[in-house]
């Protein structure tokens, strides 16, 4: 059974856009990334799942429970870390932990103590005495203290130094290894890329893509960097191309950069930096026509790369992804 399941979940604020027809399924034990820029609808979706907002359409279930009727049961099993969490300034870290535990009928502080040790935070400090990073650590400890089955994290690494970000990433991996589920909303694409099994990309309130990170990176385009010798290939050149074939007539091929001299990461046969002409292309769809034309040219070296998640993300937001809009895309 899915931990989170929404079908055409919608929220409208009158004239203001909320989210529209969001269909998602998050399975037990996975780290699910939720990507989108500010105002795209990430936090609205989270608040709907936790019953802070009332939906205007569709359905949403968490642990199989209805988010309208069973809000308290859902929250009892969920740890939610809001974006840039604001905590009560007069309370100590331990007070917050005790509050979170007590609202679930728990008293045992041992897990919080262990988490605080790993994150390097003193829970005896009052919130108002803490730096932003320390406050974020306290919030993380309070979120995880009751050992929730589902973690909903909104920008969890905000304010954390790189070392603590690594500790947090390790913690999240450990949680999923124990069968917990993580719903991670983040702007930090590198973090999402390294942690998440699947991601959803939300744009202007609509989920434009849900897929595995590896598929997402592989399916959209590839970056091809080719280095050529001085001899012209037989693919037919054009004036000023140094005798290179004109690849841009191949459907789905787009020029990113070309030039002469060393191309990053492309080495000549002697192991030195390539001194001859090189070209970087972005290829959408079938690679074979390009490879065939490259084979008939004076190709000396070739590198084919999947895009980074950031490049995929940017492609969705530049409007040229051609991705379908809405609907569950597993």
């Amino acid at each position, binding site marked *: 059974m899915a931990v989170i399941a929404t079908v055409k979940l919608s929220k409208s604020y009158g004239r203001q856009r909320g989210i529209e027809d969001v269909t998602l399924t998050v399975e037990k034990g996975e780290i699910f990334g939720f990507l989108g820029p500010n105002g795209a609808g990430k936090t609205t979706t989270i608040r709907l799942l*936790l019953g*802070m907002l009332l939906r205007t359409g569709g359905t949403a279930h968490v642990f199989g429970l209805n988010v309208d009727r069973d809000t308290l049961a859902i929250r*009892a099993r969920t740890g939610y870390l809001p974006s840039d969490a604001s905590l009560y300034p007069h309370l100590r870290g331990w007070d917050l932990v005790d509050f979170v535990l007590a609202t679930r009928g728990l008293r045992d502080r041992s897990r919080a103590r262990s988490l605080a040790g790993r994150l390097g935070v003193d829970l005896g400090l009052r919130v108002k005495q803490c730096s932003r990073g320390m406050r974020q650590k306290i919030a993380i400890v309070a979120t995880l203290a009751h050992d929730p089955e589902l973690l909903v994290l909104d920008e969890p690494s905000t304010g954390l130094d790189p070392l603590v970000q690594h500790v947090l990433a390790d913690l999240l991996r450990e949680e999923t290894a124990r069968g917990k589920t993580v719903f991670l909303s983040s702007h930090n694409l590198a973090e999402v890329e390294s942690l998440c099994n699947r991601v959803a990309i939300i744009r202007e309130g609509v989920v434009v893509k849900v897929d595995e990170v590896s598929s997402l990176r592989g399916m959209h385009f590839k970056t091809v960097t080719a280095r050529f010798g001085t001899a012209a290939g037989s693919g037919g050149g054009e004036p000023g191309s140094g005798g290179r074939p004109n690849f841009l007539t191949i459907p789905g091929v787009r020029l990113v950069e070309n030039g002469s001299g060393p191309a990053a990461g492309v080495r000549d046969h002697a192991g030195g930096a390539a001194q001859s002409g090189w070209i970087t292309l972005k290829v959408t769809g079938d690679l074979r026509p390009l490879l065939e034309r490259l084979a008939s040219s004076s190709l000396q070296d070739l590198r084919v790369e999947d895009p980074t998640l950031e490049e995929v993300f940017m492609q969705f937001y530049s409007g040229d992804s051609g991705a379908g809009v809405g609907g569950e895309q597993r």
Partner: protein
Amino acid sequence: MKLTFMKTLTVFRNYWRAERGALVGWAVGLAAYAYYISAFYKSTEHDWQPLLEYLNHMPAGLKALVGGELSSRTVAGWLRLELLSYLPMLASIYVSIVVAGIISKEIERGTAEFLFAQPISRARLVLTRFVGLALNLAILHLVVFGGAWVGIASIGEEFPAWVALRTVSVAWLAVMAVAALLLLISVFVPDYTRTLFTGLGVSTALYVLTVALRASGRENALTAWTIFGHYDPAKLVESASGVWEHAAILAATTIVFLTAAVLIFRRRDLRL
């Protein structure tokens, strides 16, 4: 059942901790005010004639403002004039501040998201905090009662405790009804500062309306339409007549406003 109680207790304890500093400050201030006003009665003992003349020649409106027909030559009249007439207004200032903190302050300072991520229903949260407010307000009224009693005793005078308690209790009920009204308003105003000043404005307007109606002699309209109209220190000091009726109306008003606030808050988006 045990978990329900534990949750309620947790919310209450958390709220109490947040409010206790302000409560102590207000309690000390009101106790000192009640004590000095009461003890000051002695100093008018030899010079009461000019004061009495001054009061008796006041316009009706001003008389209404300070508690109606006056007899400052008795302890009861003095307390009514200098303390009991203003008590609901002072308490309303406290209530306006505290009620604005029940919902709006949480939203404005961003703690609402942390709070509402916990398995606590909105109804439980609001009701528990309102009970906390009721308790704090009762403590403040008892402190006024105690301060006045000590002040009167310190000058060797007497004021029947049950009369003071009766008057202070109805004052407490009147302010609780105002608090419930302000809570209902705060459900629609998520901004703390606006909630605070709206609360201060509404409670002051109700008080002034009561005084104005009382000065114009429209007692029926007054009691029917305003909350403070059910608190008349002049009558409460003199007799117990109608006390239960007014107390019941104020309690019912509180319950109606409180229920409306909770029901509406449960079905509204949290604009965090």
